[in-house]
């Protein structure tokens, strides 16, 4: 009896997810966007596409780490084709570096806007455009109404939105599907090899709708984001800070 009940509850959960706009996308050719251990935190064990993700950072290093982590996600989102819009207030992204994450930098259109209001407007317009793969916006404040508008826009167009909030005044409630915090970690190299290793971050999923928040150490190696348990096993003391 309890098995039947569990089945019903499971089915109801799935129906609710559908109603909330989480569609299970079945595409065997699409690469998985995040390592399996991270994906298990999401509903349907899939990175939500066609949703708005919020990233919080409090320091300059965290901003850079967040940009890196998003580039890692973008690399698998954009695949071979696909265009992307990056809206920010200053020219702080170095386009050639995107290639290191496997993203063709010429496929990214940068829009530099000063006013938050303009950024929000441009972001909403861009999120409505179905020809885009992703839209990244750097904002400081995002109130609930604005985030709801963005969320409604993506539910229709299935574009993935990323909002980078640098040093927000308050961590208010938003309609975004997830809230992340990315901190940089010192990279590490096997067998005490010299040099700078692969980018590595501590990824903290603070909030996720219908999922389980968590914390992971993720490395960008071999052109994709990886969760490396072997690295995590190494005691923290032996890590060298490389910047």
């Amino acid at each position, binding site marked *: 009896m309890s098995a039947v009940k569990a089945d019903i509850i499971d089915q109801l959960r799935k129906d609710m997810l559908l109603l909330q706009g989480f569609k299970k996308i079945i595409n065997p050719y699409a690469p998985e966007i995040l390592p399996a251990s991270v994906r298990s935190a999401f509903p349907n064990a899939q990175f939500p596409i066609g949703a708005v993700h919020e990233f919080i950072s409090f320091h*300059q290093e965290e*901003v*850079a780490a967040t*940009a*890196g982590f998003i*580039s890692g996600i973008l690399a698998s989102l954009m695949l*071979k*084709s*696909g*265009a992307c819009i990056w809206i920010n207030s200053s*020219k*702080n*992204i*170095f*386009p*050639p*570096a*995107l*290639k*290191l*994450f496997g993203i*063709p*930098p*010429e*496929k*990214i*259109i*940068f*829009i*530099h*806007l000063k006013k938050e209001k*303009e950024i929000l*407007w*441009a972001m909403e*317009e*861009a999120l409505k*455009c*179905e*020809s*885009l*793969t992703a839209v990244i916006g750097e904002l400081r404040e995002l109130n609930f109404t604005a985030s709801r508008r963005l969320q409604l826009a993506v539910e229709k167009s299935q574009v993935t939105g990323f909002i980078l909030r640098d040093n927000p005044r308050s961590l208010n409630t938003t309609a975004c599907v997830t809230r992340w915090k990315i901190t940089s970690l010192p990279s590490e190299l096997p067998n005490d090899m010299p040099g*700078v290793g692969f980018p590595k971050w501590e990824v903290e999923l603070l909030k996720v709708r219908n999922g389980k928040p968590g914390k992971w150490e993720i490395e960008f190696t071999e052109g994709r984001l990886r969760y490396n348990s072997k690295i995590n096993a190494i005691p923290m003391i032996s890590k060298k800070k490389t910047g």
Partner: protein
Amino acid sequence: MQKRYVTIWFQSLTTDWFIRKQPGLKEIPFVLALPDHGRLVVTAANNLANKEGIEPGMAVADARTLISSLKVIDARPGLNSKLLKGFAEWCIRYSPYVAVDLPDGIILDASGCAHLWGGEKQYIFAISKRLRNFGYHIRIAIADTIGAAWAVSRFGKDNTIVEKDKQIHSLQSLPVASLRIEPATTEVLQKLGLYHVDQLTAIPRSALRRRFDAQVLLRIDQALGNIEELIQPVFPPEPYHERLPCLEPIVTATGIGIALQRLLNAVCHRLQQEEKGLRIADFKCYRIDGKIEKISIGTNRPSNSSKHLYKLFENKIDSIEPDLGIELFILEASKIEDLATVQEKLWDNKGLDDTALAELLDRIGGKVGNENIHRYLPAEHYWPERSFKPATSVIEKAAIAWKIDRPRPLQLL
């Protein structure tokens, strides 16, 4: 199509302008004068001064002996060409081809225009009435050739309509100066007793060619329509343009929007039939007071979708000041490119060469300025700060590969 030309002669252009600026001058005789060889020479005299025998070219000292209370105003060199250019632009509401005819006239190519005003009589009456209301003394004529219209407007009766192919009759009794011949040649002709045009046309052409320069024959041919005469329009009309004259002046934003929508539909329909799209479009509003309000848009890809173009214009309609009203709308597509209809793809490979994306960038660029939108391509340079360059268009492809041999920071300080 049968050519018809209108010429307008401003009898006293500069003095009328001064009277318009200072209405007090209407009642007193005055002249415009310029210093020349150490004395003041009259360049233009108003009607009252003219009646007393003061003429351009006279020294001001001589003129003062005729009228002691004569008012002398400094003439402004180049004023007449400036005024005529302004009038020519204003006259675009009556015909798309308008040319300045220095020193004191305007030529309109009225072919196919007059019927919009209900006939040639009403057409020239409408023009002359408006110009006279401004306070200018003008004479106007319409004929098959520029030469005939010019001659009749200056030497014939005012508001003359020279019937089709009747220019020879209307010219017959006019003086030879009406043929736009050099003053020196005119003088020679008069000395020879050739006062009227019919006397000149009666002489065999070979005799004329032998005795006078080729200009006389050329001018006769131009006036009679044997040789085509070209005019240099003030604004060469764009090949893709639409006009919408309004019966009542438009003052509201809604009205402007409707006019724009109609013009866009007409232009886009034509572009669609010819498989072309526009890149730059100008929307001009001719106000009653003679000013022109203009808004323009640009697109990233050739477009012939009136809905999209209307959206781009929509943000800028607010910047139009209708003032007393707008009586003519013109939409010009100044840059046209081929737009082949592409076959719809079964599956989408989302890329940069996409209509929806180009339209999005147009909208964003129209609101916040295109200078804020950037896309970068690799440049062949070792210096990291020079290793990328801005792309010129959305669809420009990278000529070389990006360098990934060195680690580079993603975020700059």
